[in-house]
């Protein structure tokens, strides 16, 4: 009986481990998704050795904090980092989706995305729980010289929502669940501490 039990145990273990590895192989190729270029929501040169793709939510406090880490990394390593910003609004954050819609619209008015992006994070606590957040978004848009009426129309366009949701879906396919999540040359990194460690490790290795 003991022998039979051992055989059954081994068979179940083999089947379970196999099932997990098989399921993992069915996941989409991250390279294809990460290589897609988002021109208006990127910083730096595509030829840079370090590609950082950030999946973030405008209402998440660690995402606001992460931009400091990214900013200092960009300053510390000029020309070495290519940064892409991708939306991942969480359903638990009531204004995150609206903020992402406005930011997507800002990216359509050339050269204005990053300023608006900064404004949203800068004033995060002011609009996060506001029932009339879009009024504040429109005012931030005006502050950075965006065409507000175009922004309003664009944010109500179902096509804009489709783009944001599609981007989030692709993030999910890559395994993103928590914000901020980063892909550093294709490798997923979750949280600010890990981001800093990974960037530091890359440049240390490059130096050596």
């Amino acid at each position, binding site marked *: 009986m003991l022998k039979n*039990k051992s055989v*059954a145990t081994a068979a179940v273990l083999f089947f379970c481990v196999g099932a997990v590895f098989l399921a993992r192989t069915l996941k989409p190729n991250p390279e294809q998704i990460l290589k897609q270029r988002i021109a208006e929501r990127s910083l730096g040169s595509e030829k840079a050795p370090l590609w950082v793709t950030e999946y973030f939510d405008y209402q998440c406090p660690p995402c606001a904090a992460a931009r400091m880490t990214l900013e200092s990394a960009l300053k510390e390593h000029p020309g070495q980092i290519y940064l892409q910003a991708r939306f991942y609004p969480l359903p638990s954050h009531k204004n995150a989706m609206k903020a992402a819609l406005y930011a997507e619209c800002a990216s359509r008015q050339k050269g204005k995305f990053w300023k608006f992006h900064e404004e949203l994070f800068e004033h995060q606590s002011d609009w996060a729980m506001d029932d009339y957040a879009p009024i504040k978004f429109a005012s931030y848009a005006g502050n950075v010289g965006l065409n507000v009426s175009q922004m309003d129309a664009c944010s109500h366009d179902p096509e804009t929502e489709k783009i944001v949701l599609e981007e989030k879906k692709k993030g999910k396919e890559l395994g993103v*669940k928590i914000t901020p999540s980063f892909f550093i040359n294709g490798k*997923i990194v*979750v949280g600010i501490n890990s981001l800093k460690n990974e960037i530091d490790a890359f440049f240390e290795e490059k130096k050596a």
Partner: protein
Amino acid sequence: MNPASFLLLIVRVALGGVFVVSGFQKLWGPWENFAAVIEKFEIIRGLPMTVLAQALPWAEFLAGVFLILGLRTLVSLFVLWAMNTVFIGILASAIARRLPIQECGCFGGALSLSLPKMLVVDISLWVLFLVFFLGSRRVKVPSLDTSIGKYA
């Protein structure tokens, strides 16, 4: 099969199922997600956190499958029950320390629950473990363990 053993079978499969789903969710995604969840609880960091983030989902998944099948039932039951007890302690400690954790992240992406809600779920699971353990001492529950014994 009498109603008591059928009920205990349901309890065993449900308990195993919860951990199979929880473990598989974490195994299917990158382990870094679960490492970030562990980090939020501010108990361990560094290498132990990395090891735990990769090992715990396997333990949940495998012990869950074994419990569903009723193979090595006692071992898998105690492994999961022990994990469940530790989770209760960690959740209670996080609530007591008022850590700013909005959602537990304990089920990977399958379920989004706040810490107090997750604590209630975990305590309910703990009670179910107890019910199954005590019940299975008195009533025979169909399992692979007994089938293998019968046909060996």
